[in-house]
């Protein structure tokens, strides 16, 4: 199996006025298809910056990023937007659901940016299938404010899966949840990883969460500390 993600000597430097602030100082790593990786590190270690680069939300200052065998480090904003839409999925700590919008429409939202000729009906069918997969088939018309934290996160997961991504990024997905719901969500990730073969990258500072991953990558001061 080839490498789904390959980073070579990635640097990221922020310019704050006169001062250059290096955040990533040469990161090289490889992630294979079907892995479940946890990115760990203290706050300020650069793990969020790394995730942003991996998630195509940001571009590195220097270095090479190969995704599905293509070098995408030189991609512009539009091309990266397209990659995020088709290949990558995101789950956030604070769920980021649209308020006053039903669960179904929240899940449907990424499809409106997909240049794929799906009819309205097909889209809805796919979205309700996704909600069913995360166990929310009874909550299709509920608004986020009517859902519990765990349910909201599941809607967010359904939304991230709607375009059948290759890689799912989860940024502290259990940070706002109690331990029992966290466990459910993490089991769901494991299930997706095991049955669907989706590559999952968990960003966390919680060793309890990282335990669910097959591999842990520790970041410290912009460098990889050691892989386990």
């Amino acid at each position, binding site marked *: 199996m080839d490498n789904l993600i390959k980073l070579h000597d990635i640097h990221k430097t922020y310019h704050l006025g006169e001062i250059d602030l290096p955040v990533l100082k040469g990161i090289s790593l490889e992630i294979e298809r079907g892995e479940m990786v946890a990115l760990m590190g203290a706050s300020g270690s650069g793990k969020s910056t790394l995730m*942003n680069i991996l*998630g195509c*939300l*940001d571009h590195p200052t220097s270095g090479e990023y190969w995704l599905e065998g293509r070098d995408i480090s030189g991609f512009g*904003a*539009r091309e990266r*937007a*397209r990659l*995020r*839409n*088709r290949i990558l999925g*995101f789950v*956030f700590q604070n769920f*980021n659901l*649209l*308020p*006053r*919008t039903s669960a179904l*429409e929240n899940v449907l*939202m*990424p499809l*409106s*940016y*997909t240049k794929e000729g799906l009819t309205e009906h097909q889209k809805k069918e796919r979205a309700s299938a996704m909600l069913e997969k995360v166990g929310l088939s009874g909550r299709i018309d509920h608004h986020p404010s009517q859902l519990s934290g765990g349910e909201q996160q599941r809607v967010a997961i359904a*939304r*991230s899966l709607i*375009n059948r991504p290759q890689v799912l990024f989860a940024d502290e997905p259990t940070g706002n949840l109690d331990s029992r719901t966290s466990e459910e969500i993490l089991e769901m990730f494991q299930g997706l990883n095991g049955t669907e073969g989706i590559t999952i990258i968990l960003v966390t500072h919680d060793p309890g969460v990282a335990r669910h991953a097959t591999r842990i990558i520790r970041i410290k001061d912009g460098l990889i500390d050691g892989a386990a």
Partner: protein
Amino acid sequence: MRMIGTLKTASGALRRNVMRTLLTTLGIVIGVGAVITMMEIGNGASLAIQRTLTAIGANTLVIIPGAQFVGGINYGIGSMTTLTPNDADAIAKGCPAIASVAPIVRARTQVVYGNKNWVPTYIYGSTPSFLQVRDWVDMDEGESFTEHDVRNASKVCVVGKTIVRELFAGQSPIGKEIRVRNVAFKVIGVLQQKGANMMGQDQDDILLAPWTTIKYRVVATTLSGGNQSTTNTSNTTEVNSLTMTYPNISTSLYPTQSTNEAADLPQPIRFANVDQILTAARGPEWIQTAIDQITDVIRENHHLRPTAPNDFTVRDMTEITKAMSSTTDLITRLLLYVAMISLMVGGVGIMNIMLVSVTERTREIGLRMAVGAEPNDILRQFLTEAIVLCLAGGIMGIIAGRGASMIVSKVLHWPTAPSIGAVVAAVVVSASVGVIFGFYPAWKGSRLDPIDALRYE
């Protein structure tokens, strides 16, 4: 497909805060509503002004025979005897720019009723369409004479208010007989009061009868000759007991021509000539066309060679038409400025709220970008929201404006006229206000960095 999606997203976002959406739209509603109301009141006003000026005679074109020039003596305008009722018929048929045509035969003589007598300013022989040309159709009393009366040279007449006052001491003259140069005319109608014209002449001092009657029974000659020295004295002015009894016994159906006239004007002599032809153009904008058409028709009718000068003159009321067009221009321009200002205010309101909306929904923008929205998608979304907002405001404004102008015309009795142009302009302008004032906030939203936007609190 994509457009529908964007529209749905936009309307969904607007529905999320109904109160604010409504208040924002209010600016546009008031703006567009004001524009529509103003336009309709303005339209009504300029129509009313137009109608008034038409009554004065703004659309009137007068055709006068040309000047006779014989042996070094110019007999002045109107001295030719070449204009005929036939020309009037030809104009009615051949000039689409003309609404109505009336030939006129003039007389100036004494009018007698009982023991009173009076010389009216105008004794006009014409056709019923004279009243249409002069915009004088509604009678105060009785009715006008008919085409039938014209054909029969019936001795009927319609009189103006001044004559009623002078001869009948204000009493109803309907059915009474008045004598015009010893011809008894039955009064069948009284014209509505029109007052003095712009030159100060009393327009109500008028006696109107079929032109055939005036021509053959009363004057029997043309009165247009300004030069009295050419008047053939051997005509009807002679005191003769026979003419008293049979006033039209000496009527010659053919205009008498001098030998010089006959020699200089190698044209078939016409059956009857008239002093002038009065026509009304369809509207102020038709006047020039009407003049050209009349010239062509009469030249054709008079068999004039291409090189020959016109033997007639067409006059328009330039002064009045100028006043008319400058008035309506002024009103239109004034309304345009009012429209601009009120829509501008509404547009600034839209811009303000869209900026707030972009800031408020920074996280949403970040999320949309994270799941694959391109900057252009964000731009389109917010722009669509602004346009939907403005268009909705525009439509509500049209309804409000129509309502307001209806109330104005019902309650205040101001003249209003619905204006399709204003409605179209309102829709177009409110959409463009949406684009212009929505663009900056939308552009600002689309330039956001997804990472910063996602972290925005």
